[in-house]
């Protein structure tokens, strides 16, 4: 017999020793993860109550950290949510796996109830102080301020220093952590990148933040509509394993197996029972109570269910941002030259409902570096409207971007890599059951079905861009031709006249002839451009009509239905497989270019004279 005594540890004990598994693997990540968890909780709380969220964030250095090469950082997140009751505070901030959302099958940001407790643990481990909370609900006359600490041994939150204070808000929560960390503002793991991404996929969010010594940045909401969070759906029986199935049954106690199956799962009806029976389930089990059903009997039921073909799970539980709001939000990324937005109809991937939304935008500021030498595009990944910032290479979204042939849309791309250029590709994946690769929720598992679904959305966004980029190329071609005429005509005629010693009269006649000749070429190029513009407009107009027919409510804002893939594009989705999508493309009118053409012509005329 082993001499060593076997002991059991609490969940909190486990996580306090393995904080790297939940996003606290480095001082930089610690700051970002703490901010992320606090914001996720605030936004979820606001949306649950239908409140338009208003967040205020403050991050500053308050001294030197206890860990080498770190600073002592104060992170404060204030929201206008419903507020927390005082008895819930220790559970929310100090207890692991205490969540209102665990396994509910809703598209909420938080799921397991680990993140914010881990942030409290990190603060407690590094600065010996937990989280400072101020809360006020509508029913409270005064706000309550307290300090929460994690009782690691017992996985419980302890309240300390509880006092009532006056607070100038009718309701809300303010949470403040002081912890060891390092601040990174820009780049993939940067705080600003995170906040910009959060604003992009939360158009209804009013955000104010103050980072270090910088002045307060305000990001106003672009939508006054709080998203309707679809109701949770019961799990689909085909997504369960036998053990889970039996454990799930225990919730139903004395109810019959039939009731358990109908109420505990989606897509099971009286009709499907007949199918189960045909597939080997004993009819008697249905009327038997769950309590009295043995594991062997459950195994029979489970086997019959898996042999039966069931309807795919409902996609009603999936929410989308919507292309209209997403379009408005894209403009908050910076100075956007043009963009396309694609919202795919919710679909089923790996037996789970998912909705994919894509925004591809070209930024104005970086246009100079477009081409093969430019850096890779910026990828913004979102899972249930939470930015994912680390370990992007293994993520389903990045894999999907790399499999698309962006070259056919006019965007340079090295083989099997991210495309290059001043573009931002934002991929938002919404699903009540997102399969993350790790507990810190940084990478979405790249299953074939999911990658294909994202790829389709990207292809559609790329096709929209391609039409626009081709139009631009034709405009550039025309400009180039005009420039050529201006530059080379006089030189060519001059050289020819010098060699032949031709008189001025011949020179004039030759210049006129040459301009006439090259003018014909330019006219041909202009015709091509006009045709491209016409084609572009026709596609736009056609899209509008289709949307009027299908979705009258959304026809006002110049939206267009995506046509079947353009034959010129290499990545073509078969028409039958293409889900209805909505897309929008915006571009400042090319009047400036037309002006340039007219101006150039005038200039040529002057030269001729």
């Amino acid at each position, binding site marked *: 017999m082993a001499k060593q005594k076997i002991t059991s540890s609490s969940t909190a004990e486990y996580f306090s020793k393995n904080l790297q598994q939940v996003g606290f693997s480095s001082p930089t990540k610690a700051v970002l993860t703490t901010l992320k968890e606090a914001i996720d909780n605030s936004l979820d709380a606001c949306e649950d109550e239908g409140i338009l969220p208003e967040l205020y964030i403050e991050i500053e250095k308050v001294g030197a950290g206890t860990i080498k090469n770190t600073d002592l950082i104060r992170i404060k997140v204030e929201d206008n949510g419903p507020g927390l009751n005082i008895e819930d505070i220790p559970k929310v901030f100090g207890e692991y796996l205490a969540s209102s959302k665990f396994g509910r099958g809703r598209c909420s940001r938080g799921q397991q109830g680990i993140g914010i407790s881990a942030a409290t643990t990190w603060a407690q481990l590094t600065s010996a102080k937990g989280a400072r909370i101020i809360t006020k609900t509508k029913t409270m006359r005064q706000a309550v301020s307290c300090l929460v600490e994690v009782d690691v041994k017992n996985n419980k939150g302890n309240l300390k220093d509880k006092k009532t204070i006056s607070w100038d808000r009718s309701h809300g929560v303010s949470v403040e952590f002081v912890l060891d960390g390092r601040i990174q503002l820009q780049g993939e793991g940067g705080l600003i990148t995170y906040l910009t991404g959060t604003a992009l996929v939360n158009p209804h969010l009013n955000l104010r933040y103050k980072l270090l010594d910088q002045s307060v940045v305000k990001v106003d909401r672009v939508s006054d509509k709080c998203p309707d969070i679809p109701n949770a759906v019961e799990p689909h029986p085909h997504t369960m394993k036998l053990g889970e199935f039996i454990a799930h049954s225990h919730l139903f106690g004395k109810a019959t197996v039939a009731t358990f199956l109908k109420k505990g799962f989606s897509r099971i009806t009286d009709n499907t029972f007949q199918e189960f029976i045909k597939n080997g389930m004993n009819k008697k089990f249905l009327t038997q109570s769950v309590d009295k059903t043995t594991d062997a009997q459950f195994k029979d039921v489970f086997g019959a269910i898996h042999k039966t073909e069931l309807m795919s799970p409902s996609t009603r539980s999936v929410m989308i941002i919507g292309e209209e709001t997403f379009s408005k939000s894209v403009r908050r990324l910076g100075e956007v030259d043009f963009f396309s937005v694609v919202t795919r109809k919710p679909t089923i991937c790996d037996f789970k409902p998912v909705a994919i939304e894509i925004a591809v935008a070209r930024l104005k500021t970086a246009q100079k570096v477009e081409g093969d030498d430019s850096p890779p595009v910026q990828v913004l990944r979102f899972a249930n409207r939470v930015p994912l910032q680390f370990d992007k290479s293994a993520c389903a979204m990045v894999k999907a971007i790399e499999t698309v042939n962006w070259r056919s849309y006019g965007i340079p791309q090295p083989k099997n890599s991210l495309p290059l250029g001043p573009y931002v590709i934002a991929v938002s994946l919404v699903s009540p059951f997102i399969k993350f690769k790790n507990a810190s929720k940084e990478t979405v598992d790249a299953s074939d079905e999911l990658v294909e679904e994202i790829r389709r959305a990207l292809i559609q966004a790329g096709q929209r861009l391609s039409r626009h980029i081709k139009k631009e190329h034709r405009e550039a071609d025309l400009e180039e031709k005009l420039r050529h005429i201006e530059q*080379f005509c006089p030189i*060519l005629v001059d050289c*020819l006249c010098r*060699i032949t010693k*031709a008189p001025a009269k011949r020179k004039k006649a030759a210049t006129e*002839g040459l301009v*006439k000749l090259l003018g014909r070429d330019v006219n041909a190029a202009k015709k091509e451009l006009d045709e491209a513009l016409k084609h572009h407009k026709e596609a736009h107009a056609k899209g509008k009509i289709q949307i009027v027919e299908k979705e009258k409510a959304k026809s006002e804002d110049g939206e267009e239905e995506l046509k079947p893939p353009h034959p010129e594009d290499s990545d073509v989705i078969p028409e039958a497989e293409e889900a209805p999508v909505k897309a929008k493309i915006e571009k400042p009118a090319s009047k400036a270019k037309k002006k340039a053409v007219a101006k150039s012509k005038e200039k040529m005329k002057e030269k001729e004279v």
Partner: protein
Amino acid sequence: MREDTIPKLSKDLCNRMLTDLENARRPVLEAIKCSLDNSNYNPKVGYLTPGNKMVRSELNVASVQKMSRAIFILEILLRNIETGAVNTKRELYYISKGEVKHNPELRPLDFADQSESDSIIDFICEMMECYREDLNCYANDRGGQTYSNQLVVTETLPDGGKAVVDLSTLGTSPFQPKNRPQSLALKAKKKIDFCLVVESEGTANTFVTNGFCRRNNAILLGAQGVPSNAVRGWCKLIQDQLKVPIYFFGDLDAYTLQNIFRTLKAGSAASLIRNSDFSAPDVRFLGVLPEDIKKYDLADYPVKENDLQEARALKKASDALKNDPFFKDKKNKGLSKILEWLLKNKRRCEQQSYFTVDPRDPIMPEKIILEKIKRGDFI
């Protein structure tokens, strides 16, 4: 081409272009297509000649830059011809840069690098159907260092004077043939038995130092790899003016056979318009022959297929057997058989391997060469 014809041709061309422009017609420039698919080989002629294919270049928005650059460079070249100045392609590149620098209006014509101005010079040559030397644009006189105790060369100088060079008076120094062989006249003081062209310049030097020219009434020259215009024109002169048999001694590999020997014997596809003056169809391939390996027990080695250059040469050899009119012709069956042997056996043997036959006899390669010539052991 006579020197005074270039300015006349140029003026006619420019006049034609100007007239077309006055009438709002697109000037069309035509040049012979210099490529293998427009190459013909007639064994009676002996070198690659151009077919009927022409490259037509019509003036339009896309080609106006190229045309302007061509006329701009033509003007510089005509000025050179008028004053008798000569330049290399690189010098012309810098002259054009200078013109642009001093006349900002010409800035759109500026060349980003020499390859751009080079291609314009080649385009002018093809358009005018002349050699670059006709436009006073000379290349570096590379390769062809010649040794002989019997040869006397008379060079007509640009000022009309004559320079006579007796090669026997040069000791072990070589005579360097010029890229413009038309100005040279050859005479033999004594009967010359043969001319030996050695692929490696170093091996040619060894032969001379070891007394090859003292023992033989011969002309010895080193090709220095792919023969330059100077080497090609020089061999043609030796063949035409002295009427002596010419033998080529080089490596047994696909590169030597196609790029060096074929160019020397029949010219190249890129120089179709000047092969008549820059190829010596009578030159024979003395070795190394595939049978020599066995006969003399020469050290050979396998072709490294992972070596990019060698792999490319083999690929080219198989293409040449299918498409090159020179290798396809019956007259050159012996040479195409060597190519087939190389492709099949994937082995190569260098010219220096003759030194393995008797390592203690420094003139053993010479002895083998003389024996092969005597026996007619060449292709």
